[in-house]
């Protein structure tokens, strides 16, 4: 055996150079690089020739020119006289707005449905299952169209309204709410909120330390809740009620054309926003529900049984044993659903909610700067995706089981 082995080694030394795996692998890679180089070079050539033929100047100069179109929903100042760059910024903020609100509400709804799916109550489990199976198997765009072109059409007309507690109003022009007006001294309330959060942080540390030392528990949750509520409330009254509410103005009398909500009063959400929001939340919630279900089912029954056997209460078993283990399974796919929701918010363009893609599309049509706009889109979305996946990788590392 050993002699043969030695002979074999000798053979390898004499192997022809093209049989050397290293040489081969580099040869393949060089061919690949050359090929890709050729593809990229020819695309470059073609692009510059085509742009020249169509008389389109490349470059980012267009971002400074006046946009000249209005945007219905804007979080910060914007007029038709603002620049294209400003318009894109408005679009990006709108993307963040829908993504942020969508993520929060989709998580809540998704958890509720996911838990309902596992309920021992037959009808609740079945309703949750039907919801998941229907919503997951329909295209999101169809759902957005449905909410926007069919469901929202049933709302009261422009000159009427449906009100909830006389503060939140709904009609075909959107959802109107009172807007907070920050008067002088409102920063005190803000400071109080920050102080409450800081206080909670220290309270938790203190309570944990005390429990470790003396074994006594402190009602951290209730105290925190009280702190978060009462501290700003006291500050609010101490500063002389600096924050007021501006109600949307609705005129029911007068000439027909003047009836309805006055422009720029109160806080308003456009119907496009509402339709996109409802569609994204209900759609993503169905996926989150399945993730939650899988996560809870992944925790072995023996875990909660063992915990009960140790005399740990039901509540603490759930909080300290089941949920932490379920979260390890739930969080990574949950975050990728958040990412999907953010990317899916780009479907806004179909119903003209002014998000990044819709605004970019308008600019693209006006200026013809296809390459710049598409590049901008790609860079922004890639930045969002990559930063979220970095956070996810960090989280995965921090909760990964430490192998023995």
């Amino acid at each position, binding site marked *: 055996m050993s002699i043969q082995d030695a002979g074999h080694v000798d053979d390898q030394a004499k192997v022809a150079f093209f049989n050397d795996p290293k040489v081969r692998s580099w040869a393949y890679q060089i061919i690949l690089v050359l090929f890709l180089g050729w593809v990229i070079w*020819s695309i470059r050539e073609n692009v510059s020739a*085509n742009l020249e033929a169509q008389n389109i100047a490349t470059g980012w100069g267009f971002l400074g020119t006046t946009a000249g179109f209005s945007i219905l929903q804007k979080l910060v100042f914007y007029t038709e006289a603002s620049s294209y760059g400003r318009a894109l910024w408005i679009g990006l903020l709108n993307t963040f707005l829908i993504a942020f609100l969508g993520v929060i509400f989709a998580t809540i709804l998704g958890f509720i449905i996911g838990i309902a799916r596992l309920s021992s109550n037959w009808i609740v489990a079945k309703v949750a299952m039907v919801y998941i199976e229907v919503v997951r198997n329909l295209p999101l765009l169809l759902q957005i169209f449905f909410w926007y*072109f069919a469901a929202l059409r049933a709302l009261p007309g422009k000159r009427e309204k449906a009100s909830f507690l006389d503060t939140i109003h709904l009609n075909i022009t959107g959802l109107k709410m009172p807007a907070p007006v920050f008067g002088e001294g409102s920063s005190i309330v803000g400071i109080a909120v920050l102080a409450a959060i800081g206080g909670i942080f220290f309270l938790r540390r203190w309570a944990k330390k005390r429990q470790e030392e003396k074994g006594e528990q402190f009602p951290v949750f209730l105290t925190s809740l009280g702190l978060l509520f009462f501290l700003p409330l006291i500050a609010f009254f101490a500063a002389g009620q600096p924050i007021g509410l501006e109600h949307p103005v609705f005129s029911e009398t007068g000439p027909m054309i003047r009836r309805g909500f006055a422009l720029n009063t109160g806080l308003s959400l456009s119907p496009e926003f509402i339709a996109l929001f409802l569609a994204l939340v209900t759609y993503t919630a169905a996926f989150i529900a399945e993730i939650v279900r899988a996560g809870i089912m992944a925790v072995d029954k023996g875990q909660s049984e063992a915990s009960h056997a140790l005399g740990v209460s039901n509540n603490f078993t759930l909080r300290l044993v089941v949920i932490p283990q379920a979260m390890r399974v739930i969080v990574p796919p949950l975050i990728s659903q958040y990412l999907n929701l953010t990317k899916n918010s780009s479907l806004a363009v179909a119903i003209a909610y002014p998000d990044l893609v819709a605004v970019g599309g308008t600019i693209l049509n006006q200026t013809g700067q296809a390459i710049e706009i598409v590049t901008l889109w790609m860079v922004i979305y890639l930045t969002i995706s990559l930063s979220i996946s970095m956070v996810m990788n960090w989280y995965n590392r921090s909760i990964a089981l430490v192998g023995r």
Partner: protein
Amino acid sequence: MTVYDKNKVSFVRSEMVGESPPPLSEVGFVGWIRKNLFSSVSNSILTIVGFYLAYQIIYVLVNFSFIDAVWSGEDGTACRAPQAPGDGACWPFVGAYFDQFIYGRYTIAERWRVDLVYLIGAIGIAWLVIERAPKRPLVAVLMLTAFPLISFILLTGGNFDYSSNFLWTSLIVAAVILVAAFAIPTMTKSNPWPTMITVAVVLLILAGVLLLLSIDFGLPEVETSLWGGLLVTLVIAITGIVFSLPVGVILALGRQSNMPIVRIICVIFIEFWRGVPLITVLFMASVMLPLFMPKGIHVDNLLRAMIGVAFFASAYMAEVVRGGLQALPKGQYEGAQALGLSYWKMMGLIILPQALTLVIPAIVSTFIGLFKDTTLVSIVGLFDLLGQMASSLSDPKWSSPMTPHTGYLFVGAVFWIFCFAMSRYSVYMERKLDTGHG
């Protein structure tokens, strides 16, 4: 002390009492209801809420689509009429536009070609799904090779002309790469003939396909701008599926490769497509792709969308396949290598069959996602099923308050049937292929 003889004493039982039946409230229908619906106060409340919700949904749906629905009419008058039974569906609208929903504006005299493609496709898929059907591997290969080719010729009309220089350059480059890729391994073999023959056969098949596409079958050309409805949806989805699986496998292997440059290129490619929304990819395909092409080359709209969707889907597929590759125990790789298998034999015979089986559910859900995503092409000016329906809503002849609802219900039902069937099939496959140790 008296000893009692138990046979003589009348009050001592001589045998066990039989089990009495469980109380009526614990078994059967009543027991089931008590256990599953009314086990506690909160559960009872939930049950009532649940039944109310279910009743509401079913009531609205049944009322809308059957009881209050309008079933006949030459135009929207019946649906608009105030005496119409209420908020019911306007089914004659779907009837009038049905052909458009299925074929788009495809030349009416040539629609038999679309029907034929649908028929072949349906038979092929049914053949593959039914397990007792004979020669399934052969049918699978035909469905992946001959079927796309036949469909392509039938749908477009074939009869291509290869006069453009660009096409020739690309073809020559492709042939050179193919030969080069096989030339290096061939040099190392003691008997190079089998490989050489393979290369020759592949080149011959390619030439044959090109020749076949240029033959005039007497089918009039139908421009893709006339295609629409379900036809476009299926064409984009199926090309996406057929393209994304092999490309996804290659990308996944590339990402796991030892060659640094190959790995980096694959990672960049995958992460790029996965990081951006499909709609921007479609915009890119529709506005940038024409700029990438040399002058005089026209890439038609449908092809642009297909390319965008295919690349996008491949990246997702690559990640799914990578999941399968990583889930396999290392012993499988080591075992294959210990047997002296080459890289491609190891992958093709040992690793991929197992890895792909592991991720069948994920592959199918990628397909479902792809199928649903085809609706996005309506944003870049193509008319898929949803786009076709949405555009027909603007017909004043049929406009009525309930026409949009009807249209969305119909399109939704079609998409739902396709997606639900796929997901059920994947659940079934998962159960069937589950070996029990994993």
